[in-house]
């Protein structure tokens, strides 16, 4: 079992969702985050007060998957999120110790899907 975490551009979320559905990955969690990597933040100005290098809005997608779904999920995210520009984001894959479905208390692979 793996945890796939992707940080993507907000405007790509619709396409990423669509690609994930196509790859049969339906269970995702999305949150709004701030950050920047190589892409510098933009300077904001409020009544003359400059805020340098402010953080940019990003979307974080979390997907818990069984091992055989890792590659399809990664491919789907790349397909939906890639524009070729700086700031397209990153995907992190983490090992996942356990997964428990609260309603039934099932554990392990069966609880993911």
């Amino acid at each position, binding site marked *: 079992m793996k945890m796939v975490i992707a940080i993507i551009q907000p405007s790509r979320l619709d396409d990423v969702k669509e690609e994930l559905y196509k790859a049969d990955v339906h269970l995702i969690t999305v949150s709004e985050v701030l950050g920047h990597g190589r892409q510098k933040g*933009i300077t*904001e100005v409020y009544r003359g007060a400059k805020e340098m290098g402010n953080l940019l809005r990003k979307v974080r997608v979390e997907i818990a998957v069984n091992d055989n779904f890792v590659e399809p999920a990664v491919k789907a995210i790349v397909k939906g999120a890639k524009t070729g520009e700086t700031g397209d984001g990153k995907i992190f894959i983490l090992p996942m110790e356990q997964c428990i479905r609260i309603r039934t208390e099932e554990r392990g692979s069966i609880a993911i899907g």
Partner: protein
Amino acid sequence: MNAGDTAWVLVSTALVMLMTPGLAFFYGGMVRRKNILSVLMQCFFILCLVSVLWVVYGYSLAFAPGTGFWGGFQWSMLNGVGLEPYNDYSATVPHQAFMIFQGMFAVITPALIIGAFAERMKFSSFVIFTVLWLTLVYAPVCHWVWGLGGFLRTMGALDFAGGTVVHINAGIAALVTALMIGRRKNSEKHIPSPHNLPFVALGTALLWFGWYGFNAGSALAANGLAANAFVTTNTAAAAAGLSWALIEWIRNGKPTLFGIASGAVAGLVAITPAAGFVNISGALIIGLLVSVFCYFAAVVIKPALGYDDALDAFGVHCVGGIWGALATGLFATKLVNSAGADGFFYGNPAQLMIQVKAVAVTVVYSGIVTAVLFKAVDLVLGMRVSPKEEDMGLDLTQHHERAYTVLE
């Protein structure tokens, strides 16, 4: 000079002023959160810009006695526009009160077009385009319909409060700019959802409130005609809100807030040319039917043809405005306004043809000149922001501000 009339026209001016910020929220709620400031900014910028242009030369071009095409420059800097009434426009209120009342109409008209090109126009180009449009489209059309010697006025076209001058004019310009600037990025697959419907409701409320000044103020007197316009305005807005909600209820199973708000605005648009010429049954029919036409334009025709009139400036203002102008030719009666004319249903079918002509002239002139102005600014400055800027949003890239923080 009449104190009551003057007070009412000045209060109406303030009411119409409030419509532009109202429109800003109406439109601002419909865009994505990364673009709301750009829409509010465009509206507020127009409020400031056109207010200045209007007293410098705009009022003169639109209203000074001039050629059949437009007024001259002789009233520039309000030269000769004094505190005494100017009898040919308003015999009982100061000329400057009439001037500033008209100024608020000139402010909101270019602001209506924003709905078509929202979320993708470069701000500097927008400013230049607005100046050109006010000068070469709004001023002449306004002169034709309301100015001394204007040929549509002479022809007998009825436009009580600006259905042709404001709504058809801006609405057709909206369609042209939407077609020329092109679709928003990635909008083919996913039509962007409105980010704040409470703002849409707030904007609708402010528009509705301000519209009493727009229509009842256009009587230019505190009299029975103003009361007639007030009542027909409220009735048409209410009927149109109900009928839009009903259409959704039948078609989709649920009525929506966005729908009833859109319907109310469509009703206000449609009653604008008719408010001082029709009675209450005319107002009811105008209101009930306008939502059918505007709903069809925005929900059926637009997706079928594929143009991206982002916030339905054409679908509501041009379609609703044309229905209002034609309906004025159907339902107008001299029993309401002896200075008006009878319409089709009151034994004067000729009036309908006059209305058709006025609509056609406006659509053709505004459509062509808007296209030329758009193309000219596009060639020199470029109308559209870069794809990267469009992704990041106009608030950050055009104004270096953002509306909402994520943390704190």
